[in-house]
């Protein structure tokens, strides 16, 4: 005899293990059709999928395609089972949010930059910006509170990387695509970053893709790896 609760569980089950999925995403690298990549992957709720591969293997390109910043020549991605063909571009891009390798800031203070995502009509329709939570996350990432009123364009590389992460988390996407987020950080701040990321992943129906050169992922659990490699020929 099956109870109602079990029934619900089996219904929700596939969504939890396949929160974000991409199938046969194929693209070529460089201007010619010389080197091609074909890749599939899955990230369940709370998972971190680390994308690995040699330099120039197309890791950043993969993130840009998955975030719908670059055109996708072939393949399909799904969010909680729903194809990206069914989801409008702006909605997809804020839900499967890609944090650029080089942090981007707008004219204004750090505080104004953190509130920037909430300037779009799509975000205004949802939850408002929570400055308290952002300050808390800055604190967790070992950033001084005085940074809030500093000109964002004058941040150091390590500060910029962490402020950009705070801004991405404020947006609260379902899937966070991170392109070497810890590249500019020392060991202590890198560990803080992974701690904050782990805390965020546990706080809801969330997953992350992480392009990284493998510097150890202390604090992150449920890490799986995906290695991509470009193939010669057409």
């Amino acid at each position, binding site marked *: 005899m099956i109870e109602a609760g079990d029934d619900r569980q089996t219904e929700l089950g596939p969504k939890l293990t396949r929160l974000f999925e991409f199938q046969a995403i194929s693209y070529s690298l460089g201007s010619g059709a010389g080197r091609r990549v074909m890749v599939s992957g899955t990230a369940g709720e709370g998972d971190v999928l680390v994308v690995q591969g040699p330099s120039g293997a197309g890791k950043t390109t993969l993130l840009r395609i998955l*975030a*719908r*910043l*670059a*055109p996708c020549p072939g393949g399909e991605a799904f969010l909680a089972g729903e194809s990206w063909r069914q989801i409008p*571009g*702006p*909605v997809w*891009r*804020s839900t499967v*949010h*890609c*944090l*650029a390798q*080089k942090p*981007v800031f*707008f004219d204004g203070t750090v505080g104004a930059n953190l509130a*920037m*995502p909430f*300037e*779009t*009509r*799509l*975000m205004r329709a949802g939850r408002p910006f929570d400055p308290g939570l952002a300050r808390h996350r800055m604190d967790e990432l070992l950033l001084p509170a005085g940074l809030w009123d500093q000109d964002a364009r004058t941040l150091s590389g390590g500060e910029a990387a962490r402020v950009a992460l705070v801004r991405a988390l404020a*947006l609260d996407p379902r899937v966070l695509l991170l392109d070497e987020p810890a590249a500019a950080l020392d060991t202590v701040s890198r560990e803080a970053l992974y701690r904050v990321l782990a805390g965020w992943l546990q706080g809801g129906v969330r997953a992350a893709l992480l392009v990284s050169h493998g510097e150890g992922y202390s604090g992150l659990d449920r890490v799986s790896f995906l290695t991509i490699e470009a193939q010669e020929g057409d």
Partner: protein
Amino acid sequence: MAYTVIPISNLQLAFTVFLVLIAGAVSALLRLGLLRSLLWGTVRTFVQLTLVGYALAYIFAVNNVWLVWAVITLMCYIAAWTAVRRTPGVAGDHSWLSFVAIAASTYLVGTIVTVLIIAPHPWYEARIAIPIFGMILGNTMNGIALSLERLHSGARARAGEIEAMLTFGATPWEAVRSIVREAIRAGMTPTINSLMVVGLVSLPGMMTGQILGGADPRLAVRYQIVVMLMIAAAAAMGCLILVGLSYKKLFTGDGALQPFVLQSRE
């Protein structure tokens, strides 16, 4: 005091060739290598303006509404084409958008000025309409060329910011709004500057022409005020229309930035 136009006879006109010879002598003496272009330019000035003079005399004499319309539309086409051709670094074909922007702003402002403000009889009087539309076109053309160039160079320089806005769920318009604003401002600035210094730094060509043509300077000034303000209005509208339509060409159908914005210029 009688206001009259003093005619220039053929002999007097031929005498101006001596002025070119002075410039030619300077070029030859200093080996500037400008002699050929100077001669070619002189010939073109004579031929082009003479032909335009005869064409205008014919058009003014016929004074047919359709002919006036055809001439102005042809002028719009040439201005649109010139504006787009003079913008290096702007990818894609903008001639059609440029024509729409120029024709729409020029026709609206030009019609208001000729029909409502100057109000000749008949309302399409070629002697009034063609020079008025021509002055609007020349200035709108420069304005939209500037704003188109600024839109594209701004998008290239700030591609990272545009993409960041897109990842926040921005629509293409929300992502480029600030760049569009700067582009329109760039297109309007020369016109606004000329509003500031008109009459102080230089006497505008049209006013000078009317004074030479024997008009009362006080009346010439009135015409000039109308012309300055209509140019400002048309330049603003032209830039607004062109940039408002053309920013979409920076994006794919999915609302992402076109790859060419992120790549080096050709």
